């Protein structure tokens, strides 16, 4: 779960990481009573990236201009996300910009601290074009993270004296946040030199969805579309795409492969829903309801390989509520015979071969 900048900064402040003085507002009028020194920076609080380029960050030199700009940003649409809140902070004169983060290195199967003297820009771009500017320290799960890791990294990033000590202290705090908050990613970009000291000008914190249960008092942030939220409430995995073929399958790998098959035969997936392992008749009924709510669906492809999931449960759901959209069913695996019998009685044909079924689906979608 992604936190907003202001939420991440509240946590940073608790751990002693220096941040700008600021306040969160939802309406332009709320700027009136604030005690910030002008000029201020107004920053849209959205979970999607690239808000600066989209016009979601503006400077204001006085209260009148701040109200004007706040009015423009609040309610703005940034990559499909509506801006509901602004973070107003005292503008600062930024010197050198650094990057610092802790995240999971999948290949090393450890946490890793990543630092760079080339901060303030897209770090993946830095990693690709000038990998020598990236400094990494992997954290031994038994020995843990210690201050000397930060000092070593800081030296490689060119810090000396007071800034070096500050850098190591901030890195230690970030390591504690990563550990104690079950972070997938905790990032400061830029970590900037302002008036001779380091300051976390931006803050990113993503908490592992699987660990949310052991952290009380976390905000509930959702970047889901309405249908994605509906599916999540039913413990189904739904993702929206932009074609016209709705897809239901069981198991993430099989579903991804089904999307690829549809594309291979010239179709365009509109969305997909993974009913997971052990899907029941109720799950399947909800699944069909959710994928077909999306406008502009021209065909539905149901691709089930029964393992824990039983073909007869799936067939019963389809037969009880046959969808209105043109549909192709591929059904094989556990209780396949029973499933086929149920569908046959309802006059529905079920394919065994996934490729033949995918071709038929694309044909149906194209006929519309």
């Amino acid at each position, binding site marked *: 779960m992604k936190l907003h900048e202001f939420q991440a900064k509240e946590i940073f402040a608790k751990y002693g990481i220096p941040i700008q003085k600021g306040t969160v507002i939802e309406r332009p009028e709320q700027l009136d009573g604030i005690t910030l020194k002008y000029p201020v920076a107004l920053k849209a609080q959205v979970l999607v990236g690239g808000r600066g380029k989209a016009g979601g960050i503006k400077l204001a030199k006085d209260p009148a201009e701040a109200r004007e700009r706040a009015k423009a940003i609040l309610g703005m649409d940034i990559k499909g996300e509506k801006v509901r809140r602004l973070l107003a902070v005292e503008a600062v004169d930024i010197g050198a910009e650094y990057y610092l983060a802790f995240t*999971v290195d*999948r*290949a090393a*199967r*450890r*946490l890793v601290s990543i630092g760079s003297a080339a901060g303030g820009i897209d770090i*993946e771009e830095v990693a*690709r074009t000038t990998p020598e500017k990236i400094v990494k320290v992997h954290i*031994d*799960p*038994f020995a843990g993270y210690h201050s000397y890791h930060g000092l070593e990294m800081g030296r490689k990033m060119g810090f000396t004296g007071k800034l070096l000590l500050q850098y190591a202290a901030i890195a230690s705090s970030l390591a504690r946040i990563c*550990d104690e908050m*079950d972070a*997938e990613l905790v990032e400061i970009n830029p970590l900037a030199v302002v008036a001779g000291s380091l300051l976390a000008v931006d803050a990113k914190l993503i908490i*592992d*969805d*699987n*660990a949310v*249960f*052991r952290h009380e008092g976390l905000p509930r942030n959702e970047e889901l579309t309405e249908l994605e939220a509906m599916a999540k409430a039913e413990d189904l*995995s739904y*993702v929206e*795409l932009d074609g016209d073929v709705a897809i239901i*399958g*069981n*198991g*993430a*790998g*099989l*579903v*991804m*492969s089904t*999307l*690829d*098959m549809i*594309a*291979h035969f010239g179709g365009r*997936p509109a969305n997909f829903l*993974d009913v997971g*392992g052990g899907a029941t008749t109720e799950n399947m009924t909800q699944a069909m309801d959710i994928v077909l709510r999306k406008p502009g669906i021209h065909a539905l492809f149901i691709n089930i*390989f*029964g*393992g*824990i999931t039983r073909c007869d449960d799936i067939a019963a759901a389809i037969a009880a509520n046959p969808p209105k959209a043109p549909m192709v069913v591929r059904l*094989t*695996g*556990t209780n396949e015979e029973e499933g086929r019998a149920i569908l046959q009685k309802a006059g529905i044909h079920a394919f065994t*071969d*996934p*490729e033949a079924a995918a071709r038929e689906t694309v044909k149906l979608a194209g006929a519309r």
Partner: protein
Amino acid sequence: MAILVNEQTRVLVQGITGYQGEFHGRRMLEFGSKVVAGTSPGKGGGAVAGVPVFDTIAEAVAQTGANASCIFVPARGAKDAALEAIASHLDPVVIITEHIPVHDAIEIVATARAAGVHVVGPNGPGLTSPGKCKIGIMPNTLFKPGPVGLVSRSGTLTYEIVAGLTNAGLGQSTALGLGGDPVVGLTFQEAIEMFARDPETKAIVMVGEIGGAAEEEAARYIQASVKKPVVGYIAGLTAPPGKRMGHAGAVISGTEGTAQGKIKAMEAAGIRVVDLPGRVAETVRGLL
């Protein structure tokens, strides 16, 4: 032969009194696996499907000689369950449980590594050596003993490809699912090293998906060290960047983890990569 499990494997089911633990414990027995014990703290002394239930692994091992584990314990208790199995040197430790926090997975994997224990998963279907032993949740009826070693990151896609192999008359030495989480124990490379050493395995199938760089790493190893034919398939060619595609690990971030990148690396390493799962079997046959 086969890898990781065989006729000598004595399976302990952790969480055997739960819904999934009991259901799949029975299926493993039907398959012919030697399921010799189960654990369920507080329920020691009972039995499930004739299998004795213990409170602790230490007692189960002392009384039944269990030497491998299958974990169905829910995510909140899964780290503790895995560490207990590793401490008793059960090997492999197969973790079926999904939604385990990634910080817990890191600790489990590091502890297993230090103890020299193989962890398979979490969030995978387990592994099956047809005619010998199954640990996990793969359907019993798909398999047939034979020369193909299969390693995959997904569950149902593994079933799809195993069924294709079996229908084409190609049996399997071992079929193994690594799990769909960002951090898992056994890697593609480790599984492929074992298949390369296993005299029964004559051809290897690797089924990957978007996210991470494990397929690329395995491809480099295959190019340098594997003489047996390898057939590959990668799911997620049409997945958009930044979207989590069901598996927690299946997300393309920045320039990393794309299907195109993986396919290119695998083809460069001499792996025959097919564009549809249904083409795996015929391609394997052509190489055997």
